[in-house]
């Protein structure tokens, strides 16, 4: 087992933030590799600060290292200054744990959380000294694998990935390890790579792109079909039935240098059935699987003691929906061990006064800012996206926040949603303006920040058929909002670059023909594309033109029901006809309740896999219309939120 440390060390004094490359985190392991041990390099294709906190990689790191026949280490994309040194000095991509070179591992496994990291994945494979194209790899090269949310459409990366994992990784990593272990034992002889990949394609949840062939009718995709009879026609995702059996990470990594989400993170449930139609995470992670409350408390108490953190985040897609959230957080706050110095954060707040009440209980000291995500500016629009927050919920939440000492509220919105009119877009500012007015009743220094992102349709959502707004159209909406925001005191507007949304959309719903485009952008230096200062639209458009591919066809075009989608041979459990019906309901402005507390509408996620929700309480949470059981059509609450609303200004009257 070799190490590049002595080659690397002299250069670290000359690069930015060298602590990113030294490892030594609390919880880091130095597993022994050897005969009969399958070595995994778990890689996040972005910087250490972004990648280290990734819970998925940390969970797999522990599960693999607990096995006798596996050893897992970690790597992150080096920043440009170090990459230049590495290329000049011929230092390969290395693990931060033992500084072992990437090409010595058996599996290079990537977490794919964002489409704009795809070129970084190619860069990491290349830096590791491994051919970027799967077809060029030989038996001595590592297997290149990927997991994470983007793998529900891995087709744009089909040329580069040997295998793809769909869904929860906790169980399947061990099954993959067993297959690779046998391959190693057999001596990885000439021609054996094809055989091990074929064997891996039999593992449930594993998709091996090279075992499938894509055929086309002109521009249209005809089908993606297996090349062999023993390769499954459709790959189903993996789902762990019970989160309680997987109390990971047990030893969360504590970095020596600053990273994002630098706190203890405890996952309280996985999956979400709120049914927001734009939200891929909520669709592909079903059903809801709650962690038992006592296990949450134990993981928090043990984690704080072990790590020395003074902040813990209870993570999930909507933590206020956790059964018994109040007693759980109260127990953490009241634990005498924490001496009142521990703060608890709920990264995804639901929009209602009840949630703010919990937040107040948690953040006794640091009441700086609260964030809500109404996502759209009008009730009509929110029915279309099935984010069933009424204005009263938002105003109740904001009133509650300002009255309890918060001064800054941040609101997240999407623009470019299906059937969105300019009135819907401008509704964003109406909401923000009303929030400022509510705040002024409590405090002078009110700040309401509205963050607007361009909507990108994702696979396995009801909006997968929707033609994304053009970059010009998104730009027009943003500048319309910006002009109005300038005239609105107390509202600050921030927005995402519509050009980056365009490329995210291209990769999100693209097919195998995009492989050469991604490779060309990477070869011409287009890495770190999710960093605005490095984003290069020109490289993408040039590469598309060079390969005769069309943005209009890939991104802006509405799909029809009959169209074969590039991910039709993969499955997140959701029936395609359920998604289509939900898309039709969206266009008809019909909402769909949360099936945790209302009868099943058979989306397929539970019935298809013989699993069900694991929810401690059958009662919907208190407060706001985001609970269920209320009349969604009228938008009326059982109990009114005590806020006086100003008459709504007529939208567009000033233009």
């Amino acid at each position, binding site marked *: 087992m070799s190490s590049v440390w002595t080659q690397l*060390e002299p250069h670290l004094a000359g690069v930015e933030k060298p*602590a990113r490359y030294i490892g030594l985190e609390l919880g880091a392991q130095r597993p022994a590799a050897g005969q009969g041990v399958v070595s995994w390099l778990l890689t996040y294709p972005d910087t250490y600060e972004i990648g280290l906190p990734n819970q998925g990689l940390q969970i797999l790191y522990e599960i693999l290292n607990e096995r006798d026949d596996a050893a897992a280490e970690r790597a992150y994309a080096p920043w440009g200054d170090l990459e230049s040194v590495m290329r000049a000095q011929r230092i390969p991509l290395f693990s931060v744990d033992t500084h072992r070179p990437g090409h010595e591992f058996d599996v290079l496994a990537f977490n794919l959380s964002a489409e704009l990291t795809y070129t970084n994945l190619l860069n990491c494979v290349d830096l590791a000294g491994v051919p970027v194209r799967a077809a060029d790899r030989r038996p001595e090269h590592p297997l290149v694998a990927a997991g994470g949310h983007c793998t529900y459409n891995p087709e744009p990366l089909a040329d580069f990935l040997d295998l793809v994992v769909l869904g929860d990784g906790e169980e399947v990593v061990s099954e993959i390890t067993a297959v690779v272990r046998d391959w190693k034992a057999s001596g990885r002889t000439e021609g054996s790579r094809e055989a091990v990949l074929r064997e891996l394609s039999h593992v449930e949840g594993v998709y091996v792109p090279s075992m499938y062939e894509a055929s086309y009718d002109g521009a249209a995709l005809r089908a993606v079909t297996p090349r062999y009879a023993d390769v499954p026609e459709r790959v189903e995702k993996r789902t762990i039935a019970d989160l309680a059996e997987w109390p990971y990470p047990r030893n969360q990594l504590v970095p*020596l240098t600053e990273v994002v989400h630098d706190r203890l993170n405890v996952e309280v449930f996985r999956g979400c059935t709120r049914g927001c139609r734009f939200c891929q995470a909520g669709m592909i992670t079903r059903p809801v699987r709650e962690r038992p409350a006592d296990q949450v408390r134990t993981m928090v108490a043990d984690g704080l003691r072990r790590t020395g*953190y003074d902040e813990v985040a209870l993570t999930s897609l909507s933590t206020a929906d956790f059964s018994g959230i109040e007693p759980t957080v109260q127990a953490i706050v009241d634990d005498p061990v924490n001496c009142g110095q521990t703060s608890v954060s709920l990264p995804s707040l639901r929009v209602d006064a009840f949630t703010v009440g919990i937040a107040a209980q948690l953040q006794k000291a640091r009441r700086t800012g609260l964030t809500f995500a109404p996502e759209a500016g009008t009730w009509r629009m929110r029915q279309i996206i099935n984010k069933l927050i009424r204005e009263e919920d938002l105003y109740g939440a904001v009133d509650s926040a300002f009255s309890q000492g918060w001064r800054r509220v941040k609101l997240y919105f999407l623009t470019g949603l299906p059937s969105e009119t300019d009135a819907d877009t401008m509704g964003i500012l109406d909401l923000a303006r009303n929030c400022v007015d509510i705040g002024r009743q409590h405090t002078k220094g009110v700040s309401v920040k509205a963050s607007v992102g361009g909507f990108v349709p994702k696979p396995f959502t009801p909006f997968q058929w929707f033609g994304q707004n053009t970059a010009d159209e998104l730009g027009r909406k943003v500048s319309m909002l910006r002009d109005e925001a300038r005239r609105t005191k107390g509202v600050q507007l921030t927005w995402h670059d519509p050009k980056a949304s365009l490329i995210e959309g291209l990769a999100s719903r693209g097919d195998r023909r995009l492989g050469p485009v991604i490779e060309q952008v990477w070869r011409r230096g287009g890495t770190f594309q999710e960093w605005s200062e490095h984003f290069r639209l020109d490289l993408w458009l040039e590469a598309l033109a060079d390969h005769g591919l069309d943005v209009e066809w890939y991104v802006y075009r509405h799909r029809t029901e009959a169209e074969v989608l590039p991910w039709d041979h993969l499955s997140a459990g959701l029936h395609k006809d359920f998604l289509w019906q939900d898309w039709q309901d969206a266009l008809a402005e019909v909402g769909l309740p949360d099936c945790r507390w209302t009868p099943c509408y058979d989306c397929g996620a539970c019935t298809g896999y013989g699993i069900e929700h694991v929810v401690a309480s059958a009662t919907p949470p208190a407060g706001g219309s985001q609970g269920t059981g209320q009349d969604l059509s009228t938008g009326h609450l059982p109990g009114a939120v005590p806020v006086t609303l100003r008459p709504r200004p007529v939208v567009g009257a000033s233009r």
Partner: protein
Amino acid sequence: MTAVEPAPTRRGGGGAPHGPLPRVRIRFAKHGKVRFTSHRDVARIWERALRRAGVEVAYTEGFSPRPRLSFGLALSTGHESDAEYLDVILRDEPTPSTVEQLPARLAPVLPAGIDVQRAVALPTGAESLQQAVTSCTWHIEVADVTPSDAAAGVARALAATELALSRERKGQTVTDDVRPAIVDLRVLGPVTEVVAPLAPRRSGAGTELEAELATQPRALRPLELVAAIDPAWVVARVTRIHQWTLAGGARREVVDLGPAATPPPHAEVRAS
């Protein structure tokens, strides 16, 4: 500098007895890979380590209570040290044995390469680290310079009546004479393997210097010293060996390890 920092007191203690809070001064070393952490990183590492060890540190009042720690002179990222310090303000008066046992309690909760050497209780009214330290002794490895060439450079620098150096300060370039900040400078001897960026025609060998540099009124840093001697010299490993304070006219280490000092338990990380 005779100014004495106002002793830390209980603020807004709500019924707690008023008076100065006890302070403990901790000496530690920083070697190996962990030298690439920044001063800010080290502060955060200490906050967590003290919590993990269950040391009852006093907290600041206000909206964001922070543990009350104070660090001495920042060590540049990448430099090593045999003598780093921090002062910890405690909630309650520690017993002598509590203070004595601190290094043993902290050792298992600190990363490899940060080694606690000694902890002492500070008398009420003791100077802060920033005030107390007047100079530091450094070992500086210079790549590709023979001991005789190094000696010539050192002699030139010491003989100079003025040594001008331009430095950035608050966004402006300031040129001043750094010669008075050089208390002592000498060649220690050759180094066979320096850790410096490899470049064509580099010998891989070099020379080690020892320098005592003043920290007041403004600290002269090892890299600045070398730039002032010869801008062409490439600095490799830099290690802080001592931090000196004046006591009754005599120079002494801020916290002496004494003859019974044990070698740091993580000594092997140097080789990693």
